[in-house]
């Protein structure tokens, strides 16, 4: 879902850049308390590793029926681990690195970070919160509640991001909006299954091996 240079119109691009920058500045101030703790430096190598994992999974495409392919976006996954505000900054930096390889445009960094970081990260995170609270009424184990909610949240977030991306393309005039939205949503309804599975598996693995790395448990409200 990496928008290349020249696809969106200048106004859409500028507006999405402004929104992304504002959210990132806000994100810095609202970022979790984990970054203020005495031993928070210990988290930093793990954040580097997480970024490498997201980069690698965005870099490689898995086959999807119909002659297309998918790759992890990872916004919701990062948000579950580091918090929704930090996820926008992480995704933005990963997109910067990918744009150096020509995967996603440099002028489209703002729109791409909006779709994958803000929709994928922040919106996806709060969808997960909603489902975790629904699952709190069941007798599921804590890690299963978060894992299943992550799968659902990341799936909805990726489809929602594709819907928004369809609007952006339509407004930009590259493809009529009535074609762009259904086409984008259709493919991402399939691609999103991979996103959901990978995100859920990684969250489940972290819960089993290093649960304190999930820093958002209190916001998720998991019981």
């Amino acid at each position, binding site marked *: 879902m990496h928008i290349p240079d020249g696809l969106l119109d200048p106004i859409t691009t500028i507006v999405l850049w402004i929104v992304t920058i504002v959210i990132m500045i806000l994100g810095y101030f609202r970022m979790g308390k984990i970054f203020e703790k005495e031993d928070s430096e210990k988290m930093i*190598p793990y954040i580097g590793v997480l970024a490498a994992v997201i980069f690698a999974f965005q870099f490689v495409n898995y086959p999807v029926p119909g002659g297309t392919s998918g790759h992890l976006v990872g916004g919701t996954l990062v948000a579950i681990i580091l918090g929704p505000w930090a996820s926008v900054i992480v995704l933005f930096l990963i997109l910067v690195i990918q744009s150096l390889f020509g995967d996603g445009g440099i002028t489209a960094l703002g729109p791409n970070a909006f779709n994958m970081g803000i929709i994928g990260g922040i919106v996806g995170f709060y969808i997960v919160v909603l489902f975790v609270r629904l699952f709190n009424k069941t007798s599921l184990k804590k890690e299963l509640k978060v894992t299943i909610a992550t799968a659902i949240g990341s799936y909805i977030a990726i489809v929602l991001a594709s819907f928004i991306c369809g609007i952006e*393309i339509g407004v930009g005039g590259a*493809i009529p909006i009535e074609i762009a939205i259904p086409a984008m949503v259709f*493919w991402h309804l399939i691609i999103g299954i991979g996103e959901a599975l990978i995100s859920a598996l990684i969250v489940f693995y972290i819960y089993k091996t290093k649960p304190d790395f999930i820093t958002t448990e209190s916001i998720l409200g998991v019981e």
Partner: protein
Amino acid sequence: MVEISRYKWPLITVVVVVAALMFVIAVGFTIGFLSENPDGLERVLIDNNGEEWLENLFSPWTPILSWVTNDYVAGIIGIVLSIAIMTGVFYLITYLKKRDTK
């Protein structure tokens, strides 16, 4: 003085995960379970406007790492860059946040 022993496990994790990622990328590109097909957005654009149109979209720059044509090498460079940039930025964020709370 930085106490390396404090970072023993984080550093071991970095090395292990990077090695695992490189292995997955290498195996993926060798066996071919990874796909070269266009992703969802590219598919939509190609279906409607054609591949040539997509390749000729105006870009104000030439991506500075576009000369790396080998996927495996690009993957390794990207992983190293991700770790370096993210570590640097979050070190700075942590430093600034701690300084502000003092």
